[in-house]
C-alpha cells in the first residue's frame, strides 16, 4: 500500500477532522470517553482511508475485510471515522448516546448493520475476530480480520484464551491493533496491572509482534504491510499512542479516560484542533 507525502497530508487532514468530530459529539452527548478515541484517531484514519478493503455503499460485500472493535468504549472514533468514510451522515454524530439514536453508548449492530459485532463488555472482541478468521479460512477466503484492543483490556483473561487459540490455529489473516496508551480507568496500566513486556507475552503465544508509533502513518502502514505477508502467524501491532492526542489539556492524563469535555474545555480543544487543521491545509495546498 503506497504512501507518499501527498497522501500522508491528506490522512492528517482527515484524522484532524475526525478528532474535531469526536470532541463535538462528546460535548453534545455530555458523557462518554475522550482519551482513547482521540488517541486512536490516526490508526483508524489510515485503516479506513488507506488500508481496509470495504465499501460503505455495499455493507454486505463478501470480499470486505472484517473489523472488530473490542474496546467498545472508544466507539466515538469508530463512529466518526465511519461517518467521514461515508457509512452515515457526519451530521448524525451529534446524536451520540441519545434516546432513539443509532449511535449507542457502546456499539450495537442491531442499530448499525455495518458493524460486524456489538461491544462494550471488555475482553470478548478478539475471540469473535478469531472465530471470523477461522470461518473465513474454512471457506478459503482471502479477507483479513482486524481487531482493536485496549491495553487495560488485556487484563481480561478471555483475551489470553483467544490469543492462545489464534496462535495454535496459525491465523495468518488476523491482525490485532493494541492501543498501548498506558492508561485505564483507575490509573496507569503499569500501576493497575503490569503488562510489560507485551512483546514477550504475545511472542510466547506464537504471534508475529511489531511495535509502532501509533501517530506515524508510515510506520503503521509498513507494519500492516508486513503483517499481510506473514502467512502462518497471527499479527499484533502494538500502537504506542498518546491518550487524548491532539488536545494538550487531555493528553497523557488517565482522568480523561471516561470523561466528556464541558463547553469551555471543548471550545478550547476545538480551537486547538482548528489551528492545527489550518496548518495542515496550508502545507497540503
Amino acid at each position, binding site marked *: 500500500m503506497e504512501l507518499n507525502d501527498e497522501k500522508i497530508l491528506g490522512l492528517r487532514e482527515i484524522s484532524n477532522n475526525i478528532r474535531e468530530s469526536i470532541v463535538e459529539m462528546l460535548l453534545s452527548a455530555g458523557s462518554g470517553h475522550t482519551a482513547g478515541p482521540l488517541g486512536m484517531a490516526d490508526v483508524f484514519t489510515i485503516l479506513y482511508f488507506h488500508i481496509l478493503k470495504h465499501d460503505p455503499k455495499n455493507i454486505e460485500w463478501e470480499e470486505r475485510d472484517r473489523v472488530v472493535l473490542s474496546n467498545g468504549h472508544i466507539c466515538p472514533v469508530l463512529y466518526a471515522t465511519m461517518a467521514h468514510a461515508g457509512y452515515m451522515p457526519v451530521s448524525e454524530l451529534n446524536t451520540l448516546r441519545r434516546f432513539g439514536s443509532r449511535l449507542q453508548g457502546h456499539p450495537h449492530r442491531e442499530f448499525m448493520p455495518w458493524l460486524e459485532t*456489538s461491544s462494550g463488555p471488555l475482553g470478548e472482541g478478539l475471540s469473535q475476530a478469531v*472465530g471470523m478468521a477461522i470461518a473465513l479460512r474454512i471457506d478459503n477466503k482471502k479477507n483479513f480480520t482486524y481487531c482493536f484492543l485496549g491495553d487495560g483490556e488485556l487484563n481480561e483473561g478471555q483475551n489470553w484464551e483467544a490469543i492462545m487459540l489464534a496462535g495454535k490455529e496459525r491465523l495468518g489473516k488476523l491482525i490485532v491493533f493494541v492501543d498501548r496508551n498506558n492508561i485505564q480507568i483507575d490509573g496507569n496500566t503499569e500501576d493497575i496491572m503490569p503488562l510489560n513486556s507485551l512483546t514477550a507475552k504475545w511472542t510466547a503465544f506464537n504471534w508475529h509482534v511489531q511495535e509502532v508509533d501509533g501517530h506515524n502513518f508510515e510506520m503503521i502502514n509498513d507494519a500492516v504491510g508486513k503483517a499481510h505477508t506473514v502467512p502462518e502467524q497471527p499479527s499484533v501491532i502494538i500502537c504506542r499512542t498518546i491518550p487524548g492526542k491532539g488536545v494538550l489539556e487531555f493528553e497523557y492524563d488517565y482522568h480523561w479516560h471516561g470523561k466528556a469535555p464541558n463547553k469551555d474545555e471543548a471550545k478550547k480543544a476545538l480551537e486547538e484542533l482548528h489551528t492545527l487543521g489550518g496548518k495542515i491545509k496550508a502545507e497540503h495546498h
Partner: protein
Amino acid sequence: MLNKNLKLNEKMFDQDVEQIPIRQGFGEGLLEEGKHNKDIVALCADLTESTKMNLFAEAFPDRFVEIGIAEQNLASVASGMAAIGKLPVISSYAMFSPGRNWEQIRTTICYNDRPVIIAGSHAGISVGPDGGTHQAIEDIAITRVIPNMIVVSPCDSIEAKKAIQALLKIGKPAYIRLAREKTPIMTTLETPFELGQSQTLWKGENPEVAIIATGALVHKALVAAKKLEEIGISVSVTNLATIKPLDEESIITLAKESGAIVTVEEHQIAGGMGSAVAECLAQYAPVPVEFVGVRDLFGQSGTPDELIEYYGMGISHIMSAVKTVIERKK
C-alpha cells in the same frame, strides 16, 4: 392413559425399559444434520466425548474446532464464526456453558442475534457423584432470561435428536439442555416434534390436576400419573420440551380444564420452567400451582436416584404435590 396419537413407547413403564443418555441423541442429531448442511460447525472445550460431539468431530474434522478449556472463548469464537455465515454448535458441561460464560452468551451471541446453539450437557442434579460443583440446576433460569434465546429441554434421547435437528434448521440463538445419565425412552421415531409445542403424553378422564414436566423427570411424572390413577386420582402429564418460547396457549388451556397445576423439573424452583409456567398463569389463568424442583439448595455427591429422592423430585414427591394442589383447589 397414554396419548395414542403421539405414538409413544408402549414399553415405557416396563422394568426393562430401554434407557439411553439424552446427550446421545444430541450427538446423533448433530452428526445427521452435519451431513446435509455444510455450514454447521462444532466447537468444544475439552469435553468432546462426554458431550457426544465426538460423533461430529470424527466425521467432519475440518468443521470442528477444539477450543481447549476456555468456555468464554468458546462462546465468542462461535459468535464470530456465525458472523461469517456458519451455524456453530458449542458444547461443554452446562455448569460451564452457559454457567461460566453467561455474559459472553448474552453479549456476543444473543445481543448480536447470532445463530449459535449452546449444548449444556450434564445438566441437573442427576450428574451424581461429581457433586454440587458440577450439577447445573440454574441453567434454565439464566438462559431463558436472555432476549432472542430459545430454550429446549428434551425428555429423552430420541427427542433430543429431533430437537437439535429442528434448532439447526431455524438458525437462532438457542440453549439445549442435556442430561448425563441414561434416561428411559418415552418417545419413538414416529412421535411428532415441533419447537414451541408442548405435548400432553398422558391424559386421565376429567383430570383434576395438570402435571407439566420437562427433561428426564417427565418419566417420573408419568409413573406418578399411573400410580395416582390406581388410587382414583386423575391427572394429565404434559411434556414441556420448549421452555422458551413458552407454549402459553396450551398451558392456559390445561389450567382452565383442570384448575390446578404441578410443575416438575430437575432445576431450582426459582427461575426455572415452573416459574415460566407460573408467570404465564398469574397473568392469564391464575390457578393453584405446586412446584417440584430444588428448593434453593446446592447439590452434593450421591447416586442419581439418591439425589432425586433427597432433593424432593421423586415419584412420591410428585404424587404428594398433586394431592396438595387438589387440597388447595377447595
